[in-house]
């Protein structure tokens, strides 16, 4: 048993962490959410330069050919820094094409996604908690009509992977109209899109490919949630060490101490769960659906609670716009709801467990 990171993985995460410390400090995140008109293009370019979009894509497409755990570690860090970049939609788009695309489709799109010369995204939701393949109503024939909801960065994207009753389908920019939603989480834009007799290219019908894409999405959200939740614990803890009341740091009061301990208790063990889910995706595919659903449910619940607890730990200051707390609270709301709420993933996990 060797359930730990390799030296290379530690090195890569260290590199990425220093990049984010430099290029994604809270002031920069605040700038983006105050502008509220998209993502941090410069930061995204640096992640592209580092090879993030191609991490799991084949070497012959310019990718690094690594595994889900590697990508999830990146997602954890982006969550930790609340990075305002179009990571989620972009990597899922590439992954979907890798999983279900024809060789031609792969050759056409993957190198461009790896190099960042185009931006990809995925359209999964259809509203009212319809997120999953067996719930999709949108129908793709020669043409595609209908709407998808809550699509990340749809206005900026060049290529969209759309979930349809016929499986995944590719639509190019210009074939949809997008309506900007006022997303709660301003670090990741959401738009509703409408297709009207759009040109569309169906991917191969590989049902387990579609499922694996959903599992990947769940795992990346779980990893983001773990990173964000850990940061909430750290922010609240750091504050408790500095802030004084009645002549001593508030972190020396047992009441707050136990609350912080409970926060950490509800977050830290989640690391093993998301690692496991990522690991099953790579190594034990039969268990990946269940593990991914459990990770998404557990971590996203833990994140939202940790974010709430953190706001309370900060007192009034944590409720202000200028403070970082709400950035995490709102990102936690995104992770919690996008792709379906925890309870839905728990029921899915129960079914996959054969209960």
């Amino acid at each position, binding site marked *: 048993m060797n359930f730990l990171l390799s030296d290379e993985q530690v090195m890569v995460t260290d590199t990425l962490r220093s990049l984010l410390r430099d290029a994604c400090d809270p002031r920069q995140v605040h700038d983006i959410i105050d502008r509220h008109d998209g993502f941090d293009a410069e930061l995204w370019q640096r992640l592209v330069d580092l090879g993030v979009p191609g991490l799991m894509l084949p070497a012959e497409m310019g990718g690094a050919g690594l595994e889900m755990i590697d990508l999830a570690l990146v997602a954890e860090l982006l969550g930790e820094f609340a990075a305002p970049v179009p990571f989620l939609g972009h990597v899922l788009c590439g992954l979907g094409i890798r999983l279900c695309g024809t060789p031609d489709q792969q050759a056409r799109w993957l190198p461009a996604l790896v190099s960042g010369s185009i931006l990809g995204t995925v359209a999964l939701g259809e509203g009212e908690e319809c997120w999953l393949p067996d719930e999709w109503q949108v129908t793709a024939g020669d043409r595609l009509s209908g709407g998808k909801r809550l699509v990340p960065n749809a206005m900026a994207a060049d290529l969209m992977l759309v979930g349809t009753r016929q499986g995944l389908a590719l639509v190019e920019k210009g074939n949809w109209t997008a309506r900007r939603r*006022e997303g709660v*989480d301003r670090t990741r834009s959401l738009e509703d899109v409408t297709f009207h007799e759009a040109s569309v290219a169906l991917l191969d019908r590989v049902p387990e490919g579609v499922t694996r894409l959903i599992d990947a999405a769940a795992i990346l959200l779980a990893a983001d949630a773990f990173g964000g939740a850990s940061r909430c614990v750290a922010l609240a803890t750091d504050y408790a060490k500095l802030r004084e009341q*009645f002549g001593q740091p508030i972190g020396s009061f047992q*009441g707050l101490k136990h609350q912080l301990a409970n926060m950490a208790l509800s977050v830290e063990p989640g690391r093993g769960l998301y690692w496991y889910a990522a690991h099953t995706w790579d190594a034990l595919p039969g268990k990946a659906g269940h593990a991914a659903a459990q990770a998404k449910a557990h971590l996203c619940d833990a994140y939202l609670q940790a974010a709430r607890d953190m706001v*309370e730990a900060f007192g009034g200051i944590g409720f202000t*716009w*200028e403070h970082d707390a709400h950035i995490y609270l*709102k990102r936690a709301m995104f992770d919690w709801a996008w792709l379906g709420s925890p309870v839905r993933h728990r029921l899915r996990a129960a079914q996959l467990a054969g209960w």
Partner: protein
Amino acid sequence: MELGFGAAYEAFRAEVRTFIAAHWPPADGNVKDPAAIRAFRDACTAQGYYARAVPRRYGGSEQPADIVKAEIIREEIRRADAPAEVRDGGITLLIPTLLEWGTEAQRQRFISPTLKGDYRWAQGFSEPGAGSDLASLRTRAVLVDDHWVINGQKIWSSYAHRAHYMFALVRTEPEAPKHEGISYLLIDLRQPGVTIRPLRQMTDQSEFCEVFFDDARTPADWIVGGRGQGWRITRTTLKHERGSLSGLSWTDSMLRGLIRLAREMRRDGQPAIDHPTIRAELAAIEAQSMALTYSTYRAISMTVHGQEPGLFSTMAKIASTDLAQRIAKLARDLLADDLLVMDGPQRKWIDRFMISLSMSIAGGTSNIQRNIIAERGLGLPREQRAGEA
């Protein structure tokens, strides 16, 4: 045991209802007209419904304390959708303080226009670094000739950007022990030495402000009580805050909203309110709300009859905070996809989901409330700390 208000009170209710019907809405139907609103409030004061605790000579209606009547008035005003009594900090905190500690000149000068809404007040207690621990506040005032010269910063001052004046705690006796160096000053906010910066909240709205004093000035006799008495004055003022039913109507309206939300949203292909998980949690929340409501009724009944309601009186505040958190959580579960966007049909629930967090912060953190329950309610010993006797 009698849960209704009794015959005498029901007669009072009928009288109030008749009075309101005669005065509201205004004849021209324009319920937004400021002059009409003001006229209505003046009429209510003249009738003895508003400003009940304030003597007539300062513009009040000087009625004997009666929380049941007060509640009936609130209920009937709400039912008629008429302009409610103004309940800002100037009225709930400053006026009682002036009545107890102020000079006659201060009362004459400030109470009546405050009641009428001509003077709006901001509270200036909290500072960065002095939230729950007011004794450590650092804004200072120095008496120079006939004026106090004030320097420092206040925070969490509600609606200071719309206020005319502030009642503030400031350090005037730097040499005195911490608690004894604080005085209670009244300050005109509309002067060059004052800068007010509204704090944008995470809901993207602004209620609280930072207020900066840079050689701001206030007349020497705008001090309430003596020098160094500010701490004592504040403690008695806070003690004046009495058990009231107003928190309950907030809880009740949240709960009714939550039930409506559960009817509107869907879960597993059925109305969410029919889903056993949602249904059971909704009922559990209702029970918690009922427990709070009827324990408050009991506490008020006892207070009215001169009895001590005991343990519950230490916990009413945190009990409603806990309830708000639980409501927020179920709302989150009901919202599902709608939790992602601020422009959806349930925006107000997104705000409430966040605002429920500020409840445990506002007016003392929940941890301080828990200390109060444990020490004052349960009689547990105070913690011995280093450096204390």
